[in-house]
């Protein structure tokens, strides 16, 4: 760990710290008992920031800080579910395609390429518009995951193709290990390191997609996410009414979260490159 920290570049460090803060807010602070921030009229309306309400209250008498904390929690949850599904499916498809080759490879790659190429937003808009009546966090995450697996699977496939030729794989092969075993023991660990940056990227883009949908008014109405928080504030005209804490806090949080994740991704890639370079 210490060694890792010493070798880590500035970006990776900054990114790690920023992301860790968000994870802390979303998954630790979130569990401090509090009034459901969704409830309207819990507090006075449009209160300025104070000791009890560090970020003030909304036009509906909700506490902005707790709204924000819950929004961070939900957005991260969505991001993580999507990224997990996307990465797992992506790695599997990529490995299968890369190692089986031939027709299976061709077929899988055509499907993968389709999902890389087709524009996701209109399809997401279509699906959420149709199912919004019944949509929940998990369902929304599943829909978003539809577009999260294709890119990693492409990457993993090309990695698998190059690895197939490497010595240690060949050795394992010749020593009589089954394909499955080779994949699990030799390749998967390698692939996972590889896909970590994909994972973070998927988290980021899932959160971004959700907020795009929210701004179009298509995220579930009872889902308190960063995107919806921005949208609800916009709906009450918080931008022009200069309720900066209400509209500003989710925006600043989104941007910081994105910058943090992004630094983490590029920093991590540089770090890997440097490690490999040695």
């Amino acid at each position, binding site marked *: 760990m210490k060694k890792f920290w010493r070798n880590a570049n500035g970006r990776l460090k900054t990114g790690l710290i920023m992301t860790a803060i968000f994870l802390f807010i979303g998954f630790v602070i979130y569990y401090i008992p509090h009034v459901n921030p969704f409830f309207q*009229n819990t507090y006075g309306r449009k209160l300025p920031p104070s000791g009890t309400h560090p970020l003030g209250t909304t036009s509906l008498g909700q506490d902005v800080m707790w709204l924000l904390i819950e929004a961070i929690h939900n957005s991260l949850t969505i991001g993580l579910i999507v990224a997990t599904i996307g990465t797992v499916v992506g790695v599997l498809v990529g490995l299968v395609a890369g190692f089986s080759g031939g027709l299976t490879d061709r077929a899988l790659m055509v499907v993968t390429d389709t999902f890389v190429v087709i524009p996701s937003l209109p399809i997401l808009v279509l699906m959420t518009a149709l199912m919004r009546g019944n949509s929940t966090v998990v369902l929304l995450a599943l829909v978003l995951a539809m577009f999260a697996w294709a890119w990693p699977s492409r990457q993993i496939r090309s990695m698998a193709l190059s690895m197939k030729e490497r010595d240690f794989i060949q050795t394992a092969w010749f020593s009589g290990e089954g394909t499955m075993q080779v994949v699990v023991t030799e390749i998967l660990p390698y692939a996972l390191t590889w896909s970590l940056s994909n994972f973070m990227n998927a988290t980021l883009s899932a959160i971004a997609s959700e907020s795009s949908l929210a701004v179009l008014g*298509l995220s579930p*109405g*009872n889902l308190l996410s960063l995107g919806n928080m921005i949208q609800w504030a916009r709906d009450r005209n918080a931008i022009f009414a200069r309720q900066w804490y209400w509209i500003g806090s989710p925006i600043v949080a989104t941007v910081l979260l994105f910058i943090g994740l992004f630094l983490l991704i590029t920093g991590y890639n540089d770090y890997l490159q440097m490690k490999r370079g040695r």
Partner: protein
Amino acid sequence: MRKLVSLLLVLAMMLGVSAAFAAETTIVGTPRNETLIVETQIPTDTPGQFNSYMQGTSMGFGIHQLMSAMMWEMDTIKGEQFGEVAEGMPESNADFTEHIVKIRKGIKWSDGVDLTAKDVVFTMNMIRDTKGINASAYYNVVFKSIELVDDYTVKIVTNEPFPRLALRFGVTIWGNDLRIVPEHIYSKLDDVTTFKDSAPVVAGPYTVKAYDELGVWVLYERREDWQNSTVGVVTGKMPQAKYVLFKALGDDSTRQMLMISNQVDIMVEVTPEVLEVMKEQNPNIAAWYKDFPYATSDDPCSKGISFMMGKAPYNNKDFRWAISFALNFDETTMDIFDGVGRASALPILTATTAMQELYLKPLKEYMANLEIDLGDGTKAKAYDMDYAKRIGDKLRAEGRDIPTDEAALEDMFGIACYAYNPEAAEKLLVKAGLEKKDGKWFFEGQPFKINMSYLANTEHQAGRGLISAYNQLLKFGLDCNLVSESSATWDSNAALGNYEIGGYWPTGGITKDLYSVINGYDADLIVPIGERGSGQASRWNNERATEIIHELAKISPEDPKSYELGMEFVKVAIEDIPFIGFHSGVKFVPTNTTYWTNYPSAENAYNGPWWWWSCFKYITTEISPVSK
């Protein structure tokens, strides 16, 4: 790099200069001070299509506001109809099967041809005989014959007694699907349903000057011979704007920025948050009232929560009263529009000014005394008669300028709201067959959960009301699920009965005769859940209400019995509570007095602020240029 930046700057400045130069003309090149710019809600996908009998024509894009010829129009202030193409109201025989309609003399089409009874007979027969026109089926059911008596007289024979000819085929709310077309043009068409009519010949005071091929705007020009148009003949007054530009404005942030920078004169409807910002930034912007409450409460569609009464326990009036008692209207009203709006604590009928005088005030005593049996031998008052005074005091304490006069308060906040009484609500839920165990409600042994749906993004008043109710029911202890719907699923779910509690607004009330508001609540129209019937989405099965509807169908709206039956219907509905009304339709309708003035307003109520209704043409004669 530096070169690039300076190049960009120069380019931007050039564009800026041309923008400043263009300020006194509109985007379409007409002089700004001769052009009245009116918002329309959505851009059209069928630009250049002005035929009202081809599907997909956006009537609200100025077409029915400026060009259409209606048989009877509405005086929205008095709540009375008057003849537009027709001369006066129809004269019917004793059993209302034969109707003589006189046609107004002097109206000419914009190509100079006289508008006569021939056009009326042709239009009505065309609708009846053309399958592709939506109203065709209905015309076949209603009309036996439509005949020409002479150039200015039409004789209409109906299959059944039809005492409400003008109410059904003239305008009451928004507009009507009977719009007279010129016989000398439309009779030559092969198929009226595919005729775009890009350069329409009309009887209204404006004609199309130009339109955007991308569907964002339409420019109308006043007819040279406006004296011969419907408005000219009816009022003798000239519409004052030479040009009227109808334009779609985009999302809320764009709309308000356009209005603040004087690029629009009239907007359809905004939220109070938007209005406040606009007023603060531009003193020329106002709404119906100059000061608080800004909005008019006279839109005849009250918003509230609607029950799908085709299944238990929603079909039980005790359950519905329980929901009513669980809701605190003082919170609801703050959540919706910060306290603005006239309470309309009624099912079906809306507390517009006219309806409040006609129906609600006479019922005041009755409402004050109405008690609901809670099932354990106790009773609770159904209504809270102190609402107006209480909310007035509260808002005054917030610094608003609120009158203290009782009549003014009643006009502003209504005569009563539903009482808030959580204890009564619990008792009634038990009476309705629900059980409370460990703080959770059960119905028929199952955990009880209410699905509450609302239409997202378009109807703020209804949506916010439902979200507020959702919040309050959760706090009360009922388990609820909030379902936001897009219009893709909203209509289907309503008609199929695929909801439990919804923010629907099956309400109305503009004329003294209530038949057109209530006839959809006929129990004979109820179909099973999952099937689409005609009317009755909420599937309210009330025997007496149905009888009243059937009786009303047979008598003339002028008959004094019509009012008595209407009153009885209101009482039946109040006791059975098929719908919980929050407010009447509250509309913030901004106008900008930078270029034009004398818009209808509370102080100058010559018409209602209904720019999107067909009566807008009678407003154009009054809106006058600001003299510079």
